[in-house]
């Protein structure tokens, strides 16, 4: 496979996953908006920008003008925001267009038609009323694209690069979501056990679509910070947890090692991280310090990522 092909596949998946993540964040924000408490609402909108890592970009273009409509527009349509839903889908499509020959016609169709169909939600006609429609559209299309990849692609290196892109993006995003709100998961939090705490925790779970899953796992009375940390970081059954993504990245990098009959630094690193994760517990994480732990995690993931590029995307080795 061409190195560029691998890179394009990887980024296609990352952008699709990112579009999905932004849609989920918007869904949560939309919910908050329906609950009357303006001061908190304002905070939520800024923290969404923080979570998606685009607060600085926003300030660059719109100063500290954190208005709901502006932010909504920034997250959905804005060309100036490289991570707006429209931009993510456009980039996913232009990446996959470069490597059309590597994916099945079904996968191409799924991405291409998403790109064409999203145009029906135009910026000019947009009002907040349309938000749920857009969110549903993005979520269902992302699932369609994932489904066609699962059902029609050969399970070969193409599939591995597509998958790695998805899980690197997801692990990164989940880690950021937790980190932006890490203080609400600390035992020292002033509000432990209070209404507000419950509300915040629920939001966090919802923003990674893990609310129902959490309830199923821990029941109604299990909502506390230890369980949430356990669930979002270490639980193998939760498809949004860090552990789940790490395990996937590990197994796809191992596949690549087998297919290419060549060791890779990225694989060595990720398998070390997975080993360490398996020995962790929520308590140990809190001992390290949640924020410190997450920063270290993001740093390590970044290192895996750059080794992945060195191993496969430059392609000059003999």
């Amino acid at each position: 496979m061409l190195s560029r092909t691998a890179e394009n596949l990887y980024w296609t998946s990352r952008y699709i996953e990112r579009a999905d993540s932004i849609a989920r964040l918007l869904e949560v924000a939309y919910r908050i908006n329906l609950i009357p408490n303006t001061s908190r609402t304002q905070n939520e909108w800024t923290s969404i920008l923080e979570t998606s890592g685009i607060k600085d970009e926003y300030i660059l273009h719109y100063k500290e003008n954190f208005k709901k409509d502006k932010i909504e527009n920034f997250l959905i349509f804005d060309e100036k925001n490289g991570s707006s839903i429209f931009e993510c889908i456009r980039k996913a499509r232009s990446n996959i267009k470069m490597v059309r020959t590597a994916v099945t016609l079904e996968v191409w169709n799924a991405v291409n038609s998403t790109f064409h169909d999203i145009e029906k939600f135009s910026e000019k006609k947009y009002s907040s009323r349309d938000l749920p429609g857009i969110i549903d559209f993005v979520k269902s299309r992302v699932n369609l694209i994932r489904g066609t990849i699962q059902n029609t692609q050969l399970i070969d290196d193409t599939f591995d690069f597509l998958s790695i892109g998805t899980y690197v993006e997801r692990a990164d995003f989940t880690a950021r979501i937790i980190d932006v709100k890490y203080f609400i998961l600390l035992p020292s939090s002033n509000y432990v056990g209070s209404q507000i705490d419950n509300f915040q925790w629920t939001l966090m779970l919802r923003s990674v679509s893990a609310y129902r899953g959490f309830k199923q796992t821990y029941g109604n009375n299990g909502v506390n910070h230890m369980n949430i940390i356990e669930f979002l970081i270490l639980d193998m059954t939760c498809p949004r947890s860090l552990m789940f993504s790490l395990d996937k990245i590990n197994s796809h990098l191992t596949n690549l090692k087998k297919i290419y009959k060549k060791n890779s630094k990225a694989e060595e690193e990720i398998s070390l991280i997975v080993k360490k994760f398996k020995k962790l517990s929520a308590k140990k994480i809190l001992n390290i310090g949640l924020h410190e732990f997450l920063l270290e995690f993001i740093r390590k993931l970044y290192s895996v990522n750059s080794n992945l590029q060195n191993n496969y995307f430059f392609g000059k080795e003999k």
Partner: protein
Amino acid sequence: MFNEVYEKRRIRSVYSPVINWAKSLPESTILKRKSEAENLFKKIGITFSVYNNYDTSERLIPFDMFPRILSKTEWKKIQSGVVQRSMALNAFLNDIYNDGEIIKAKVVPADLIYKNPAYEIKMVGFKVPKKIYSPIIGTDIIREDKRNFKVLEDNCRTPSGVSYMIENREIMMRMFPELFQSLKIEPVENYPEILLNTLKSLTPKNCSKNRNIVILTPGPLNSAYYEHSFLADMMGVELVQGSDLYVDQGITYMKTTRGREKVDIIYRRIDDNFIDPITFDRNSCIGVPGLFDSYKSGNVNICSAPGSGIADDKAIYTYMPEIIKFYLGEEPILENIKTWRCSEKKDLEYVVKNLKNLVVKEVHGSGGYGMLIGSHATNKQISHFKTKIKNNPSNYIAQPIISLSSVPIFNKKSLSPRHVDLRPFCLVGSNSVNLVNGALTRVALKEGSLVVNSSQGGGVKDTWVMTE
């Protein structure tokens, strides 16, 4: 003007089943199928990019569902004529870059070759693999009347459009399967396979055991990018950009996830100038530094060979009948269109006087840009062109305003005739010359218009060669 459907007001037999079918379609069905076809094109992503100063946006090529039909007899003549031309063109290229017999024999003037900007001095004396310079030739043909098909121009560099030939058929078969069940239409789907075999036969001197073939594209912004990826897909070869290749010690490699892999044969869809920034245009970002040296060392083949463009130069075109006779000892099967060379004094005088009735083309132009159609031009445009021609006569040729034949399209409510041309694709390998039984028909969608280029409002049609 020849309407291909009729002969003395009676419907010609090749068209009669389709005319009956088309007339029996209710208007609602036509509209429905039209939008279905458009959606299919969009879904598959068959688009082309348009260059202008503002954006490089994607457009759908307009597709008309009424097929262009050729009888077996008509096709056989076209086929043998195109094969003949393609062989002559390759013999010509081989000659002018080596011994120059045709110049010594004074059949073609030396200046026309050696002073031609398309003559690539760096190719002189180089032995091209298997002596094939241009393995893929697209010949533009027009029909004058019932008997006469004439060649408008040859395309020896990187002719495009073959993906439309194949996709138009796919879409027609999907929408009107009943037609293909009841009529006997030659298939065209074997084109990619023949192309692959053709390329495979053109091995360079130092070639790996498993010949590694790639298509080199300028990238997704190129107007024919869809075609590049389509052909790569259908042949099962990699579609590479310049940045995917590099040259190390004279050997061309592509960068892969396994490391580097040697490349043996490149079907390039980028222009000569951009192939290699060291040898050609220094500003090229889409080429591969050192590729030309790798080519000349016999480590890789570049198809078509750099410098092939001179053979489809419009000034050379005028000598095609002589070129065919010189190399093959045969009379041309397909005639040229009467052409005046402005480089010759007598012709120039005639052209300047008769601009209103002529089509003037730049010798090195393509895509319908930089040409004047006298009958459709304003007085101002004509006098402007007159100056241009007088200032640089050898840059222009002129032809009579030919009337392209017409075939109906599905217009709003009825069938109405529009002008068409025909582009078959000839594949020249080391031991065989092939044409699939089909071609691309381009159609000028505007009433009365003669410009069929997709960049200027032309559309396409499925082209049927009947088996009997």
